[in-house]
């Protein structure tokens, strides 16, 4: 403590100049990036090599199949048979090109196909209106999507002889048209029903709650395919003997109820995120239960769950493929029936058909999931610092 500075040994003080340190390694630029992200250590280098090996195994055959060896033009199977054309044949896109109208419309009468096109257009307008968050008059958009569009769409596709639209039986509908109809009916019917169920599950009234819980848990507990089988064989049983249900209508009812249960759980998540003060504030202003839900709680809750609703729509869109199992001519079913066409009996036709279907579903589902992510980020913008 009391020792003077002279008593200190000064050996810890450096007496000679330090040699200059080597310049720092590059911390920017592609080389530095590769060093940090791909080769930061022996383990990391090994992983990079592994990834490269996987790429080397997967990419060249895929590219060869989809593009390099693929056949793009041709009128029948001869274009896609390696023994006829004399070189290995990848995807037979000529098959898809020739069958594309069948894939889109099924057996919908050729002279009436403009109606299906108008239907696609109406659907695009409705979906765009609801999904574009800053669109004008979104209330009107909701009215359009949930009331006007379903009625107009049905009249257009099924036909109204009084308006000069010939009747087209649903047995002729097919392809992407049916896939779209089934998914749109699923979402249009399930959203209102799901909201009611979600409100019921959070109700103060015990019997209402019980009915809603049983309904939701029942549909969520069984696989969709059993629901479709049930709709197919039991719906006609439950109705009076003289009422017949359209073949296409049966799975639609099943899908609507099934997806309503899932939608209810998503909406309930949104309702739970709204602080109780909102309901109490609305009540103190003298709003009734329905008024406070319609004007205060639901607008906030539904905004939060848009990503959830879109994700559930993606699941629904993928699940519509199951209607092909109960005999509805959806997109998958048209592929299944086109691939056995003897005119196109070539080795790669099957895989081509499936690749085309996969591409179709991937583009739509991936696009929708990107949209859900975008909305999520935009909604979280207020919370970001």
């Amino acid at each position, binding site marked *: 403590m009391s020792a003077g500075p002279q008593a200190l040994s000064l050996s810890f003080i450096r007496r000679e100049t330090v040699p200059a340190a080597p310049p720092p390694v590059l911390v920017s630029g592609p080389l530095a990036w590769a060093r940090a992200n791909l080769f930061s250590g022996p383990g990391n280098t090994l992983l990079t090599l592994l990834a490269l090996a996987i790429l080397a195994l997967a990419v060249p055959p895929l590219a060869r199949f989809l593009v390099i060896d693929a056949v793009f033009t041709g009128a029948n199977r001869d274009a896609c048979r390696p023994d006829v054309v004399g070189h290995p044949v990848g995807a037979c896109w000529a098959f898809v090109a020739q069958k594309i109208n069948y894939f889109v419309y099924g057996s919908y009468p050729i002279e009436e196909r403009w109606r299906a096109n108008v239907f696609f257009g109406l659907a695009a307008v409705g979906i765009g209106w609801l999904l574009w968050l800053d669109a004008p008059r979104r209330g009107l958009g909701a009215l359009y999507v949930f009331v006007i569009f379903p009625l107009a769409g049905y009249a257009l596709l099924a036909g109204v002889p009084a308006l000069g639209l010939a009747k087209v039986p649903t047995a002729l509908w097919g392809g992407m048209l049916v896939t779209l109809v089934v998914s749109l009916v699923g979402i249009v019917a399930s959203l209102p029903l799901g909201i009611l169920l979600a409100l019921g599950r959070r109700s103060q009234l015990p019997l209402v709650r019980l009915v809603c819980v049983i309904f939701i848990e029942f549909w969520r507990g069984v696989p969709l395919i059993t629901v479709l089988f049930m709709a197919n064989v039991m719906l006609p049983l439950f109705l009076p003997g003289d009422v017949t249900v359209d073949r296409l209508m049966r799975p639609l009812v099943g899908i609507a109820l099934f997806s309503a249960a899932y939608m209810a759980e998503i909406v309930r998540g949104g309702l739970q995120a709204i602080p109780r003060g909102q309901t109490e504030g609305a009540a103190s202003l003298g709003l009734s239960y329905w008024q406070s839900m319609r004007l205060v709680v639901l607008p906030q809750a539904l905004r939060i769950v848009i990503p959830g609703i879109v994700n559930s729509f993606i699941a629904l869109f993928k699940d519509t493929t199951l209607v092909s*199992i109960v005999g509805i001519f959806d997109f998958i079913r048209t592929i299944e029936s086109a691939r056995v066409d003897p005119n196109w009996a070539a080795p790669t036709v099957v895989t081509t058909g499936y690749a085309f279907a996969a591409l179709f579903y991937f583009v739509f589902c991936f696009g929708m999931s990107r949209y859900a992510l975008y909305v999520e980020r935009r909604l979280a913008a207020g919370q970001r610092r």
Partner: protein
Amino acid sequence: MSNSPSVAPPSRPPRVSPLYDPRVRGWAYQILLVLAVGLLVWAAIDNAAENLRNARIASGFGFLSNTAGFDVSQSLVPFAAASSTYGQAFVVGLLNTLIVAAIGIVLATLLGFLIGVARLSPNWMLAKLAGVYVEVIRNIPLLLQLLFWYVAVLSALPGARESLSLPGSVFLNQRGLYVPKPILAADAWAIPLALGLGLAAAIAYRVRARHRQARTGRQAPVGLVGLALVLGLPLATWGVLALVGADPVTVEVPVKGTFNLRGGLQLYPEFVALVLGLTLYTAAFIAEVVRAGIQAVSRGQTEAARALGLQPGPTLRLVVIPQAMRVIVPPLTSQYLNLTKNSSLAVAIGYPDLVQVFMGTVLNQTGQAVEVVAITMAVYLSISLVTALVMNVYNRRVALVER
């Protein structure tokens, strides 16, 4: 002013007409709802009874003991068209569903954890590859994937004579996957017994080690000793039995003959396609669950553990994984349930699961739609509800306890 005694609150709430009493209204709504639901159900049952009478379809569950008269390609229990009943067909279908679900769950969990961790890998390339896998698989319908594996891949394989030979005496051809088949001798029961004993001993050791650590602070090599007990005991039993001359497990390897494969265990292409499709599909979802769970543990937890002097291994084992599991397990269970429910897509490729055997063949033969649909749905519903119950108990146990 506000304290003035002149505005004392009324001692009783003012009388309201029952029409505006929320409690009366609530009960009125509920009674109306129950009446409406009851009416709907009654009308449905009444119509169904009349329609069934008109169609002359029997009702009741008596059909379960009638002779089935159809064959099932894959069956874990003995099943013969001539002598077995619809009830036995139900059991066969149920077992087929359960075995696909069990195998699928194990494989999908392994693959899913691997891909989920790879997505978080510091290696950019591996992370991107895992990301591409997840996005591609998740955005293509499972039915399409199953059809692809079954129709485009497995049916296009060479015939039995040109079987593809895989490492480990595994062969692949149009008729399915041939794997070595373990044949159990009469005294093979000793091995599972040893495994059970080892497991029990390992748990007992762990409990004791925990107590001792709580008392004295000294740690015991629980992992090593447990591993030795669980693996060593059955292996030792096997060894002893083999030395005595009673070989408990022999392996029958499939052999390539001139026309066909002989011996081994044949897994049907439907089964292989279903397991493959379900595993690859569910693994993508599990990978996302795992990634979300690991990312949910804030970086501060790891940093604090390192600051306390924990090595990376114990940090992962004691700090990160327990917290991540709390986030991972509930969605993971729902993925397991999804896999089980999705196994019903077997009907599209002809694998004899519960839906294909029971809702397909049996329903078509007997026409007893109500009973068959009710039984099938009850099976899936009870699997779901039991899992949900177990999950609730688990959630209550691991839920974050805050003051």
